[in-house]
């Protein structure tokens, strides 16, 4: 018997029996093991049908048992337990069973192998563990040496090989690959495919990377290398397991939270990870460190979790908790809504509370927010599909909703509790930590990774396709959230604060003598005591501007503001520079305006900076008129919200997609399409069309209008009207006095072209 200590790196089905497990040892080497492992699933239903199933399965390579297991809603029930040692046979076998016995109920069917393994042995991806093996590298025992909830786990130093083409292959044919490993950098030309493969193979041998991080590896790189391998006869296998070939997952388009998404074809490796940073949903927010953290807490492999939505991670956590608690995970069964009266429907069918902001600029504004509000409510108030709507005597009543909540810990709170506690603790530490602290970058990545999981945990309760979701539990969480925010608002107002804005889990408040974080602590203490939820000051902003509606400046808009931090940086929501469809030229202009405004901490003096802003804008407009703006800065990127043939009227992005389809490019719902606005009949030119583009055709008038709107967005809270700004920007007008000083009827630009000037009378 030998013993190895290391980190669980990869796990998959062995072609014959059991599983294959890769461990990154403390010797920094990758070790390959096998282990017998049985897959268990369950069936329930009328006794005579179970008996028929039993007889049918007697001829199959399974072991059968009668058992009792817990159903989340129905309690203990009799089930037929079906155990399979040859895991590769499972899919076919279950398909056959389901077709022959569609009337039976099945459980623990659609589960990733690693979750089953994690539930049995309490290990998890990149978890530190000890393995005892027999002579033939077969695992006899595996023991976890850590938990996913450690704040500072010891992790292996992974060897990361980065491979990137010089251009996006859907835009133009790449000419070389950049290969990066530690301090080594290479450029491999694509003109000599044989040499390319030879070099790549030698890198794999020499560096033996654990992770291959690519750009466009999923849709292009590996397919290209496979074609080259076929053409040259030089073998190429990026897997560490030489007996395996690449595993591919098909591309998909789907809707999520009202938005269209596209995930390209995926390439997964065995014994090694491949991550394509261009084909991941939220990877860009937290990088490899965050993906590893998500894998550790959810139980999903890194290659999966890096690409999938956080919702898949939450579902995995719920399933893992269910497996560990021996709760049956239903297959193709879901609970319906608990009926409600119409009055109860009106009271419950609502989302988060949003207070319209007061328009204008305010000084010393603090944002106080509940930490992970909805997950904290789920944990603190024990909200789970099976705890809501019970009739227990000691259940917590919610009379407005006509519902009670059980005091016995539910599945979802049990699954979320350790993650919520970890996130709260990391946030607390980050607030006190200096940015130079060597833990800062790591903790920041962990915090962002966990934030995404926390954000979707609530949505998952009400998600139609969620196994453990039920709309009633989702509504209870929003109901409690609204109550808590209203209570916090009352307490703040009782303590003399003005509530400027409120958005679901945050309050924007100010008080003349409250200028630093300590001044808000008594308020936070009282809110925490009343609501039982953690709340903290996110920041006190020197000033904060709330942007009004473009159509009507007297109407404010929720969640559209910019606030100046004490370090000179901004918190920005809803502005053009944060929107994905804003060209860089416009975003940079808005950014520059904010940089100028950041010079002034006193909001009443902001208008004195208008002349500097105007000078900057004139320069920008001049570069546009003279057509010296780099063409990439004029790109508009938009997501295709439906399949192309579903468009009744072609919007600009649809026209760009149509142009790409005409040259036989793959165009799917959810894909981001880049294009320019042009003075042509089509009105746009798609970026990925290979024919060269004439910059003289750029529609400068359109870009000026986009610039104008973005500029007005940030200057409007200072009192600058559209008419005045238009004259300043495009009619060579100067200004008499900053806006807000004169009566609106007297505000008129000096040297304005009076033939074209229109004065509003309101």
């Amino acid at each position, binding site marked *: 018997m030998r013993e190895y200590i290391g980190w669980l790196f990869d796990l998959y089905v062995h072609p014959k029996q059991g599983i294959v497990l890769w461990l990154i040892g403390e010797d920094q080497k990758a070790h390959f093991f096998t282990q017998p492992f049985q897959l268990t699933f369950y069936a329930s239903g009328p006794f005579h049908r179970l008996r028929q199933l039993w007889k049918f399965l007697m001829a199959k390579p399974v072991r059968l048992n009668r058992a009792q297991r817990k159903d989340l809603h129905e309690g203990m029930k009799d089930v037929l337990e079906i155990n399979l040692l040859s895991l590769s046979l499972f899919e076919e076998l279950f398909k056959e069973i389901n077709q022959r016995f569609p009337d039976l109920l099945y459980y623990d069917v659609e589960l990733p192998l690693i979750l089953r393994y994690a539930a049995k042995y309490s290990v998890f991806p990149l978890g530190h563990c000890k393995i005892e093996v027999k002579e033939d590298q077969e695992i006899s025992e595996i023991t976890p040496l850590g938990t996913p909830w450690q704040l500072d786990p010891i992790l292996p130093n992974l060897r990361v090989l980065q491979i990137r083409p010089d251009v996006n292959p859907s835009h133009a044919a790449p000419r070389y690959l950049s290969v990066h490993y530690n301090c080594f950098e290479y450029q491999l030309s694509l003109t000599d495919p044989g040499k390319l493969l030879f070099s790549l193979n030698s890198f794999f041998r020499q560096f033996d990377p654990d992770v291959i991080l690519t750009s466009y590896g999923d849709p292009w790189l590996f397919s290209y290398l496979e074609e080259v391998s076929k053409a040259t006869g030089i073998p190429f296998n990026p897997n560490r397991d030489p007996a395996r070939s690449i595993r591919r997952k098909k591309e998909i388009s789907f809707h999520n939270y009202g938005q269209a998404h596209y995930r390209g074809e995926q390439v997964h490796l065995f014994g090694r990870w491949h991550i394509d940073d261009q084909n991941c949903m939220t990877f860009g927010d937290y990088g490899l460190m965050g993906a590893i953290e998500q894998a550790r807490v959810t139980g999903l492999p890194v290659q999966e979790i890096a690409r999938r939505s956080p919702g898949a991670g939450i579902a995995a956590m719920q399933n893992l908790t269910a497996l560990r608690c021996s709760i049956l995970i239903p297959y193709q069964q879901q609970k319906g809504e608990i009926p409600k009266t119409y009055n109860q429907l009106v009271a419950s069918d*609502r989302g988060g509370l949003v207070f*319209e902001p007061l328009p204008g600029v305010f000084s010393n504004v603090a944002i106080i927010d509940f930490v992970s509000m909805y997950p904290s409510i789920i944990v603190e108030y024990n909200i789970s599909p099976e705890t809501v709507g019970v009739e227990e005597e000691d259940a917590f009543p919610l009379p407005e909703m006509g519902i009670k909540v059980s005091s016995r810990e539910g599945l979802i709170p049990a699954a979320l509790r350790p993650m919520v506690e970890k996130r709260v603790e990391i946030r607390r530490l980050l607030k006190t930590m200096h940015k130079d602290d060597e833990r800062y970058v790591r903790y920041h990545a962990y915090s962002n990774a966990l934030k995404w999981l926390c954000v979707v945990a609530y949505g998952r309760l009400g998600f139609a396709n969620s196994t453990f979701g039920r709309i009633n539990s989702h509504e209870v969480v929003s109901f409690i959230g609204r109550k808590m925010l209203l209570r916090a608002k009352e307490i703040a107002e009782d303590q003399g604060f003005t509530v400027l804005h409120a958005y679901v889990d945050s309050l924007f408040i100010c008080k003349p003598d409250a200028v630093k974080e300590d001044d808000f602590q008594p308020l936070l203490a009282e809110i925490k005591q009343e609501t039982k939820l953690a709340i903290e000051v996110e920041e006190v902003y020197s000033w904060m501007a709330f942007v009004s509606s473009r159509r009507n400046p007297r109407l404010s808009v929720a969640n559209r503001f910019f606030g100046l931090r004490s370090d000179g940086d901004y918190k920005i929501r809803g502005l053009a520079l944060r929107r994905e469809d804003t060209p860089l030229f416009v975003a940079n202009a808005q950014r520059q305006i904010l940089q100028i405004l950041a010079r002034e901490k006193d909001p009443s003096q902001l208008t004195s900076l208008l002349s500097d802003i105007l000078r900057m804008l004139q320069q920008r407009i001049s570069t546009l008129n003279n057509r010296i703006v780099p063409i990439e800065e004029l790109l508009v990127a938009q997501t295709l919200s439906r399949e192309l043939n579903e468009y009744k009227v072609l919007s600009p992005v649809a026209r760009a997609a149509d142009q790409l389809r005409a040259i036989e490019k793959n165009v799917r719902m959810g894909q981001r399409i880049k294009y320019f606005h042009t003075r042509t009949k089509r009105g746009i030119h798609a970026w990925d069309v290979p024919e060269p583009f004439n910059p003289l055709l750029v529609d400068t008038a359109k870009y000026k209008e986009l610039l104008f709107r973005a500029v007005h967005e940030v200057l409007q809270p200072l009192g600058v009207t559209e008419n005045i700004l238009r004259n300043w920007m495009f009619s060579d007008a100067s200004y008499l006095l900053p806006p807000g000083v004169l009566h609106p009827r007297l505000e008129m630009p000096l040297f304005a072209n009076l033939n074209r000037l229109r004065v509003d009378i309101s």
Partner: protein
Amino acid sequence: MGRTLPSTTQIAFDQIAELKPFYEALRRTDQLILDRFFESILQHRVAISNAADLLPMEVMPFVILLEEHKRNSQVYNELYILIEAIENKIKLLLPPEENQT
């Protein structure tokens, strides 16, 4: 906003749209006043949404009255300030013996 009932913003817009025949029959100056009422409604969506009453239309007049009261109070305050300023100026202009009487 939930998944079944419309958002308060939508309800507000629907109610405003239902008043269209009434609105069209008003003079322009009266229509502009009604526009201000509609703005008040849109500024207090959260309060309308939070009202337990089944009919938002029953809550909306309170919102309009609230904003009108605020506007009136502001006018009264400005008037009082102006009156006070004028009185002070008059006092300064009058001869001292008249001021004392």
